[in-house]
C-alpha cells in the first residue's frame, strides 16, 4: 500500500536512473510534437528504450492565446464569443458555467423555459463534442471507419444547432440571463427525430468499434489509473468516472433544472484505456435520454431570457460556478470590482486537469500504447492552453 506520491517519486527515480545509466545512443528521444500527426496542438517529448517509454515531458502552451487576460478588457457580453474559442465544438458547455457565474454575480435568475433550452443546448453540444473526440480516438487507433462515422453523424446534431441558433459550431447561444433566442416553430419534433435516429446510429458503433476483439486486445488493461490515484491526481469527467468514481457535477451540484431530471451517472470500474473510451459513449446514450426528458418537461411558452443592460455591472464580489462539460468539470471564477468589466476571470479547464495523469500513465508503457492512453484522457490541448 504505497501512496501516490511515493509511486510517482519511484517512477521518476527509476526513469531518471534509466536515463542516467544507459548510454545516450541506447535511448531515443522522440518529439511527439505539434508537427507530429499523433498529438494535436500539443508537444510531449518522450524517451524510449526499445519499445518502452521511460520518460515523458509534457510541454503544453503551443496554442496559448491569453483568453483570461483578454477577458479583463471586455465587458461581460463581449467576453462570450472569445470564451467559446478554447473548445469551439463544445461551445455551449464552455459558456454555460461562465453564464452561471455572471448570473450569480449580478444576482438574477433565468426564466424557466430559458433554463430548459440552455440545458438542451448543453446536452446537444456534449454529443457534438464526444462524437468529435470519438472520431479522433478511432483514427489514432488506426480505425478509419470510426473516424468517418462519428464525423458524419455529428452533422445530425449540428443541423439542429443551425436550426435554432443560426450557426453550425460556434453559436454563442447561452448568454448571461438565458439564451439568445427561443426555439423555432416545430423544433421539438425535429429534435426528437434527429436524436432518435442518432441513438440508433450510436448502437452500431458498438458493433464495429467497441466489440472489435482487436480493439479490446489493444486497450483493455492498458494505462490503469486506479480509483485512489485518479482522485489524488485530480482528474475529472469521463477519466474519473472510468476509474470507478461516479462523480458528475450534474448530480452532485445540480445547476439550473438538472435536479428535476432523472438520469444515471455512467461509470466503469475497470480503470483502463478501454473504460475511458467507453464511458463517453455511455454518456452520449444517457444524453439522448436526458434530451428526450428535457423536451418533454419543457414549458410550452414563456420568456427565454432575462433582459439585461448591454453594459451590465455587478456589485463588487466574486463567484465560482462549474458545469459538467464533455470533458469534465469546467468552472469559472469571476472577480468583479463593480465596473462593467470583470477584474479577473479564471478558467478551471478539465483538459488541463486530465493532462496531469499523462506522464503518470505513459512512463513504463509501450510506444504502441501511447495513442490509446493519450487520447483516452479526453484531452483537448486548445482548452488546456486557454
Amino acid at each position: 500500500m504505497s501512496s501516490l506520491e511515493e509511486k510517482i517519486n519511484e517512477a521518476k527515480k527509476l526513469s531518471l536512473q534509466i536515463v542516467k545509466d544507459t548510454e545516450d545512443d541506447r535511448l531515443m528521444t522522440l518529439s511527439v510534437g505539434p508537427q507530429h500527426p499523433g498529438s494535436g496542438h500539443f508537444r510531449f517529448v518522450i524517451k524510449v528504450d526499445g519499445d518502452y517509454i521511460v520518460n515523458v515531458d509534457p510541454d503544453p502552451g503551443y496554442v496559448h492565446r491569453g483568453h483570461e487576460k483578454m477577458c479583463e478588457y471586455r465587458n461581460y457580453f463581449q467576453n462570450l464569443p472569445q470564451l467559446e474559442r478554447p473548445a469551439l465544438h463544445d461551445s455551449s458547455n464552455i459558456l454555460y458555467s461562465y453564464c452561471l457565474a455572471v448570473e450569480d454575480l449580478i444576482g438574477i435568475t433565468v426564466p424557466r423555459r430559458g433554463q430548459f433550452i440552455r440545458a438542451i443546448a448543453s446536452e446537444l453540444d456534449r454529443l457534438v463534442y464526444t462524437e468529435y473526440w470519438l472520431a479522433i480516438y478511432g483514427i489514432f487507433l488506426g480505425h478509419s471507419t470510426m473516424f468517418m462515422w462519428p464525423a458524419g453523424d455529428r452533422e445530425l446534431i449540428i443541423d439542429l444547432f443551425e436550426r435554432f441558433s443560426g450557426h453550425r459550431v460556434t453559436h454563442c447561444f447561452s448568454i448571461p440571463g438565458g439564451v439568445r433566442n427561443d426555439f423555432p416553430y416545430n423544433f421539438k419534433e425535429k429534435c426528437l427525430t434527429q436524436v432518435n435516429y442518432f441513438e440508433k446510429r450510436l448502437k452500431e458503433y458498438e458493433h464495429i468499434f467497441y466489440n472489435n476483439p482487436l480493439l479490446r486486445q489493444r486497450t483493455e488493461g492498458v494505462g490503469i489509473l486506479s480509483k485512489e490515484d485518479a482522485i489524488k491526481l485530480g482528474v475529472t469527467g469521463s477519466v474519473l468516472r472510468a476509474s470507478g468514481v461516479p462523480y458528475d457535477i450534474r448530480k452532485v451540484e445540480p445547476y439550473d433544472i438538472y435536479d428535476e431530471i432523472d438520469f444515471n451517472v455512467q461509470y466503469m470500474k475497470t480503470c483502463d484505456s478501454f473504460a475511458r473510451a467507453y464511458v463517453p459513449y455511455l454518456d452520449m446514450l444517457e444524453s439522448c435520454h436526458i434530451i428526450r426528458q428535457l423536451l418533454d418537461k419543457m414549458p410550452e411558452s414563456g420568456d427565454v431570457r432575462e433582459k439585461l443592460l448591454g453594459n451590465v455591472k455587478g456589485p463588487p464580489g466574486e463567484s465560482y460556478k462549474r458545469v459538467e462539460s464533455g470533458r469534465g468539470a469546467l468552472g469559472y471564477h469571476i472577480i468583479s470590482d463593480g465596473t462593467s468589466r470583470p477584474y479577473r476571470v479564471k478558467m478551471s479547464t478539465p483538459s488541463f486537469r486530465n493532462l496531469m495523469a499523462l506522464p503518470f500513465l505513459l512512463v513504463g508503457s509501450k510506444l504502441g500504447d501511447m495513442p490509446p492512453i493519450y487520447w483516452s484522457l479526453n484531452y483537448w490541448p486548445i482548452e488546456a492552453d486557454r
Partner: protein
Amino acid sequence: MGSITPDFRFGNFVGSVIQLVLVILSLVTVLILPIIFFTLFFVPLPVVNGQVLTPYLFFSMVVDPARTLPIIKFLIHTDLFRAAVFPGFTFAALVAAATIFIERKLLAKMQLRVGPLYAGKIEGIFQLVADGLKLIAKEIIVPSGADKPIFWLAPLLFVSTSAAVVSLIPVAPGWVVANVNVGLIATFGILGFFPLITLLFSWASNSKYPFIGGLRALHQMVAFEIPFFLSALPVVILSASLNLSDIARSQNIFWNILIMPINAFVFYISSLAELERIPFDLPEAESEIVAGWLTETSGMIFGLIQLGSYLKLYALSALFVILFLGGWYGPQIFPHELIPGASTSNIPLLKIFALDGLYNAVTVNSIFWFMVKTSAVILIMLITRGINPRIRIDILLHTGWYKLIVLTFINLFIVLTLIYSGILGPGGMISPK
C-alpha cells in the same frame, strides 16, 4: 471552363497542326524507319507461317488484316511479351491500379463517404491518373545525411522484387513468365527480400521515425514468414510438387481449402502481415511514428513503393488462389469458337472476327476464373481495412510466433493422416487424373 484567347484563329491552329504532322512524318521517313530497318538487318528473324519475318513482310502483315493474326499469335508467345505485358508487369500493374481505385471506393462506401468523384466523368475513375501525375511532378526531397545511393535504389528494388514475385504466378495452363520447378520456394525466397529492402531504406533515410518503422517491419515480416511457409506445406505434400502450375493442376477435383481451411486462414493472416495492411500496418503507424519507414519518401519514390506494395497484394492474392482455391479451374462458360463454324469456312473476314488460331476457349476460361477468384481474395484483403484498428507490436509477435505456428500444424497432421490412410495424395482413392 477555359476561355479562348482573343488572338485565336482557327486557321492558324489547323495550320500548326498540319505543320506538326508533316514534321513528324518526315522525321519518321528520314530517320526512324531507316534506323529500324538497319537494326533489323542484323537481328536473326523468326519464321511465321513458313515465311521469314522480314521487316517488309512485317509491315505488309500489319496492313493486311488476314495476315495479322499469325503475327500476333507469334508475338504473344514470346518471352518479352509474357514478361512485359500479359501475365507479367503491365497486367499486374493494371490490376494494382484497379485495386487502388476499388479500395478507395469500397472504403468510402463503408464509411458513408463518396470517395474519388471529380477526376474523370464517372465516379472519379481517373483519380489514380491524376494522383500519378501529381506524384511525378513533385519534387523528391532527399534528407540531408541520407545514404543517397540506397535511398534512390530501394524503391526501385521494392518494385522489381514485387514484379519478380508476379513473374512466378501462373494465370492459366502454360501462361507464366517463369515456369520454375521450385516455384513455391522461389516465391518465398523472393518475399524474404522485402524486410531487407525495408530496413535498408529506413536506415538510409537517416531519421528516427523511419528507423523505428523499419525495425518494426523487420520484426513483423520475420515473425510471419514461418507460419506463412508452414501453411503452404500441406499443399506441397498433397500435390507432391513445388511447381505452382502443378499445384493448381492437382486441384481439378476439389479445392484445397475444403480439407485445409485453417491453413488457408493462417496464410491469409500472414499475407496481411506481409503486406503491412491494417490491422498489421505497424511499420506505417501514423499516430505513433508519423509514417513509419515511409516518412522521408516524397514524390515518385512514394509512388513506386505504393505500386510495389499493390503488386505484392496482387501476387499474394494470386498465390492464395493457386494454393487453396483451385487455381484456374471453374465451369467452362466460354464457347469453343467465338463464331461457330468460322475455322472451317472460307470467308477470311469471318476468320478475323472469330480470332481464328488466337482464341483458345480453355485458356480464356482459365484466365477468367483465375481473375474472378483473385479479385474476390483481393476484396477480402481490402475489407479488413474498414473494420479493424491497428494492433500492438507485442500482440502481433505473440500471434505470429505462437498462435499461427501452432494452428498450421493441425491441418498438417490431418493431411498426413489422409495421405497415409490412402484417401488423398498421389495414388490415393481421390487423386487428380
